[in-house]
């Protein structure tokens, strides 16, 4: 039954979220005292203690943990130590800005990878295949920070075609999205090529050709749709990877998303924001994984028949 299936997945997700919150709580506190970061070393020990009391940081750790868990259940992650703003709404606002990079990067990666991977598979062994695979290897090898800086210097500084930082018009999106696309585009191109190459060997493909269908029709209507199924299952997980990569890309391009916020909060040991961000990313990945599982079942009849 749908209800039982969903309930089971939700229960699993809750267990994962509990473990995630616990890890976030303790690892954040392993990084050091946020008060000394806040005040830049200009306080007496007595003043530091007063501030720690005001922030609730002088309570025993188990007590802090239970308070944190209780508040987290009510979606209250406290106030940012640096800005005194409510942490979760702050992170949510920034997540909306980050989504302007993340979702287009994922979508465009897939859209471009499909024809590239298909061509590479059909023209296997040719120059097209070599170029596509060479590009894919480079895309997966080059770190995003290097690619971003390279794009800045080529298109921003040398050619002066595109702005290199911040938000603004559509042109501000191009370089950061292109940087974010580097790895997923390469990955999907290689995967699609491998999937299509494998699918082309199936008997039903030969049957379709034998029936007199054009090669284009065979590839698009028979091969491609079957080859994309494994890619769909990867999308849920890759969303988390792209969000992680977005932290670096946002720093390079001064994009005011939650990646930049997380980086600054991690340096400043802003526990509430670190925890709220980890919670949001974890929840996003979990929900998308459940969603992808549901969609995969819709797409693949074999899943429905319990094969």
């Amino acid at each position, binding site marked *: 039954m749908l209800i039982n299936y969903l309930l089971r997945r939700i229960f699993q997700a809750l267990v994962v979220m509990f473990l995630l919150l616990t890890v976030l709580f303790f690892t954040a506190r392993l990084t050091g*005292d946020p008060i000394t970061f806040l005040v830049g070393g200009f*306080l007496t020990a007595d003043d530091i203690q007063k501030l720690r009391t005001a922030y609730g940081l002088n309570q025993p750790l188990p007590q802090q943990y239970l308070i944190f868990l209780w508040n987290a259940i009510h979606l209250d992650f406290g106030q940012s130590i640096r800005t005194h703003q409510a942490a979760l709404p702050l992170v949510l606002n920034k997540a909306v800005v980050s989504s*302007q990079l993340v979702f287009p990067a994922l979508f465009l990666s897939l859209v471009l990878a499909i024809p590239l991977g298909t061509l590479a598979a059909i023209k296997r062994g040719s120059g097209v295949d070599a170029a596509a695979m060479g590009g894919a290897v480079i895309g997966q090898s080059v770190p995003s920070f290097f690619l971003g800086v390279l794009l800045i210097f080529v298109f921003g500084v040398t050619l002066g075609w595109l702005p290199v*930082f911040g938000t*603004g018009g559509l042109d501000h999106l191009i370089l950061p999205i292109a940087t974010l696309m580097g790895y997923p585009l390469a990955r999907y191109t290689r995967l699609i090529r491998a999937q299509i190459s494998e699918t082309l060997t199936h008997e039903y493909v030969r049957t379709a050709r034998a029936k007199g269908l054009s090669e284009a029709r065979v590839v698009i209507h028979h091969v491609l749709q079957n080859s994309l199924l494994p890619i769909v299952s990867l999308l849920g997980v890759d969303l988390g990877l792209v969000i992680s990569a977005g932290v670096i890309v946002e720093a390079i391009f001064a994009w005011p998303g939650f990646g*930049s916020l997380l980086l600054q909060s991690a340096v400043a040991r802003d526990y509430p924001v670190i925890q709220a961000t980890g919670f949001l990313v974890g929840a996003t990945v979990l929900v998308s994984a459940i969603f992808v599982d549901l969609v995969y079942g819709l797409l693949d009849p074999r899943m429905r028949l319990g094969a």
Partner: protein
Amino acid sequence: MTEETNYWNRYVSARLTRRRILQGAAANGLGLTVLAAAACGSGTKKSASTAGSPSASGSVTKTTGATGTVTTLKHGTLTGGFSSGGVGQTLSPNSTALWASEFYALYDQLARLEPSGQPSPKLTPALATSWEAQQPTRWVFHLRSDAKWSDGQPVTADDVKFTYDYVKDPANKSAIIGRVTTVDSVDVVDPNTVAINTKTPDPLIPRNSFFVHIMPKHYLGDPKYGDQAMGTKPVGSGAYTIDSYSQGSSINLKKNPNSWRGTTGVDTVNMRIISEDTTRIGAFQSGDLDMVDQIPLNQISQISQMKNRKTFLPPATGYLGWDVEYFDPPYNDKRVRLAFAHAIDYGAIAKTVYFGVPKPMQGQMLSGPTFGFNPSLKTYAYDPAMAKQLLQAAGVQAGFKTKMEFRPDVFQGQAFAEACAKYLQDIGVQADLVPIQINVWRDGLYGRRKRAPFMYDTWSSSASLEASIALQWMLSTNPGKFYNNSDFDAAYNAAVSEFDDNKRQQDYWKAVDIMNADPPGLWVVEGAVSAAYRSDKIAVFNPIGSPPTYFDELVLA
């Protein structure tokens, strides 16, 4: 057949096919992309369109100076790139102890530090037109009568009292609480006169007021608004007010029509927070930015060679060097620490590790521009032979092992550590280099862990360039336990309670003399920072630090 497959069989009707799902997903993906682009297009103002171009208004005003000369001021927009580190995270000045430029744009202080033509800046009237110490523990400030908040309300002594009381209260979690530790209470004498009472005589109250941004009682004190509202929609009495703000990304300022201060031409400021050095400098190079702060030292000469680009070195506020163990043997023997001091070639490190930009420190932990810097002291002579003799006399054998904790995250952190370790090796001391992260480093500063015999350090006198801010860490009562010298304590305590500038300076000199003969650390080079600006856009660029930059004092070309 399992329960899941029953669900699929019932749910998937003839209308919901795999093809439709794929088509829907493609449409949603495209729709998300279009929505994202549309949302982005309605977001923050485009930075490039306002930078590197003629000023927005191009208007000109003429002012006549005291000598009758007419000065033409060009009005326009400035776009600046600023590294992060506390900048732009919030517009509330309670959030950070750093001296961010936007706070000096949005808010007033009782007094402001200005370039003086001398190494150390001078204190000038700001919100307060004058001040005097009525008693050693009572400072009276006379406020100007024409100061107004950006919402039109008058600035009064009540606001000053409110600000100090607010910052002093730990419940308000103000990051600048450390600037008011000597303040006991604040009295309103009349609407334009306020008195600050201190616990002990404190001659530095006016100078430390530079760090205390006066905040509005009617706004910050109103529960409807409070510090959260100050963080995003502040009310201040500075030369500028907020036009738009994107946290951690951009701060757009416009001239505050209610401010008494006015500007010298920069009526609009677009601050862009760009933490990545490469991006910030790339944008400056391409003309998207009119000025940038915190240029890496190895880029200064490159930028100086660019057309219409100049660099600017504000006064160094501190040093780069090492805290050296003071209490445990053999380091508790000052001959050992003096040996280390003479083992280092300070000039060579300044030249090779730091590209010839900063000056070597002169035998003290205070930089040249600091009030209290002793000009009679010289850089410790590089004399490895003498260093070996001192070690021998102290009974330290060749091959002595030690540890140096360095910070790899700071500019040239590893290179600096390796250079110093090599000099120690030359006198027979084997240093094991241990990289530490900033949180570990701070634990060492506050005495929460045992430091290695050498720990990288960078004490600063802050932009106020007053010696006490750095020297206070060397008091025997400091929890960091860096030093224990009763003569130093006496000289320091005399200095910070001395109202006469000349006498105070003498007391500081005495304190650093004592440290020079019995050094608790190695003070190697000045902690230099650099800014850069477009000389075709900005005619006068003379900030007291990097930060802060006073935008209201910049003159456009």
